[in-house]
């Protein structure tokens, strides 16, 4: 358990909020795609921690950022956090996204809150000089975020929406294809959509490349001991909190 202090917690449209937290211990350790479990409030209601992907982190500043959708009891309480509030954090936990040795270009496909876990990966990869093709999908332009951060770190960003039909899998496939024609994609990462996961899997199979997906499941312990958060994989039931959340696409769709 680590204690953090809320620095900002603002609505950013689409029912999402962006929260920045000071917590040097987590900021120092966290890797792209990892998760932090928030005890949203003392006491027994709600009882369990809520898992959230880390959106961005700044090791020097000691800050960690989240983007979350306000849905149920827990996230409603979080929406009320104000700068200066202390929060109770557990993490970082879980497998991170790993860039392959020698990779020159990656694609990231995120949808809705699934975008969250991919943004720091995009930033890290671009920072290391890789080319990053980011496809961000959402119901409407309001449901997409992260473009600025990604672009400012030199990623190429495409936004696609349900509202205008551009988020259609076929269209996303076309964007991917076009990008591939401009230069081979070495790895593909996806989060937030089963359909996009399938697309990424097919794409990775077709071109013989590495692909990863980050999954969500309801959790209790968050650290791998209770086995409630399993997902079905080719290796049997695996724990999303410990064996994941990042899994090879082939284990999920294979």
């Amino acid at each position: 358990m680590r204690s953090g202090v809320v620095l900002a917690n603002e609505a950013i449209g689409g029912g999402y909020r962006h929260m920045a937290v000071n917590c040097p211990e987590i900021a120092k350790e966290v890797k792209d795609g990892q998760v932090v479990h928030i005890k949203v409030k003392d006491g027994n209601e709600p009882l369990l921690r809520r898992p959230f992907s880390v959106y961005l982190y700044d090791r020097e500043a000691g800050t960690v950022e989240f983007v979350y959708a306000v849905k149920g009891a827990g996230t409603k309480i979080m929406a009320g956090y104000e700068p200066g509030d202390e929060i109770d954090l557990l993490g970082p936990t879980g497998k991170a996204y790993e860039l392959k040795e020698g990779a020159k270009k990656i694609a990231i496909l995120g949808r809705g809150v699934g975008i969250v876990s991919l943004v720091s990966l995009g930033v890290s990869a671009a920072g290391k000089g890789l080319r990053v093709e980011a496809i961000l999908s959402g119901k409407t332009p309001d449901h997409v975020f992260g473009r600025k951060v990604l672009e400012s770190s030199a990623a190429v960003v495409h936004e696609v929406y349900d509202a205008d039909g551009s988020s259609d899998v076929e269209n996303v496939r076309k964007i991917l294809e076009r990008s591939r024609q401009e230069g081979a994609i070495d790895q593909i990462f996806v989060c937030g959509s089963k359909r996009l996961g399938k697309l990424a899997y097919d794409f990775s199979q077709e071109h013989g490349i590495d692909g990863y997906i980050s999954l969500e499941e309801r959790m209790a312990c968050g650290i791998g001991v209770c086995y409630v958060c399993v997902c079905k994989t080719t290796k049997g039931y695996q724990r999303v909190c410990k064996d994941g959340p990042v899994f090879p696409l082939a284990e999920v769709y294979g």
Partner: protein
Amino acid sequence: MMERISLKVNIAGVELQNPVMPASGTFGMESAEYVDCSKLGAIVPKSFTLKPQQGNPPPRVAETSCGMLNAVGIQNKGLEYFLSVTLPFFEKYGVPVIASVSAYSEEDFMTIIKELNKKKTALIELNVSCPNLKEGGKAFGQSAEETYKIVKAAKSVSEIPLITKLSPNVTDITEIALAAESAGTDAVSLVNTFLGMAIDINTMRPKLGKITGGLSGPAIKPIALRMVWQVAQKVKIPVIGLGGIASGADAIEFILAGATAVQVGTGNFVRPDIMEKIISEIEDYLRKKNISDINQIIGGVIIE
């Protein structure tokens, strides 16, 4: 001011440095990153079965008011993995390790115990009360007869003292406890989870893949405490109390009701280091009450 406070308790000849241990299924090797295992009264890893098993289809958890439902179905890597990996891992902390054993038949229980005899775990906990194994949430531990038979069989081969873990899904838990006692169990632990259910009204489907699951957490504490109190009046063997314990105060309620030791389950999910906190809160309580030995308050609830 008191010189020293002793938290030592004794379960079936095994001395525990304090009465606090994890409840099976809520603690694993990963927990060692968050809690100093050498500080615990004992270590109880997750129940294992003879062979590895995959458990139930997800979703396996649903949060409820001050509680949670789980339907894991004892996903585990089996006896062999326990003996070769889990047990050695925990033995290095120098506190008693309690093997929690689950099985589908008397024979399986006996086979497992024979293997454990060779490794001499400190204690064995017979999980005859998991609601997530049989169809409809039934467990051996819901029948005094079946409990008697299993404990008798287990005892006939065990060279290690046995704890029998009781199901709360019964009309009269003292009857089951007495059956286990007369079959020779060296201690009882109670309670396992209460069979429960939750429905997602939007999808109109059960929230758990297996429809029903086990309720745990603070919600169940008053019922668990009542059962511990009832059982402690009736049996002569030590009682290990659990169900919703999340603080030193909770633990002390169970000890006053008659528990010699306590287990912490769901509380570990909220704070993986909670047991260390509970141990020190128990110590603080005794100090404040000017009681030098925890054994002085076991069963100490004052009934007028």
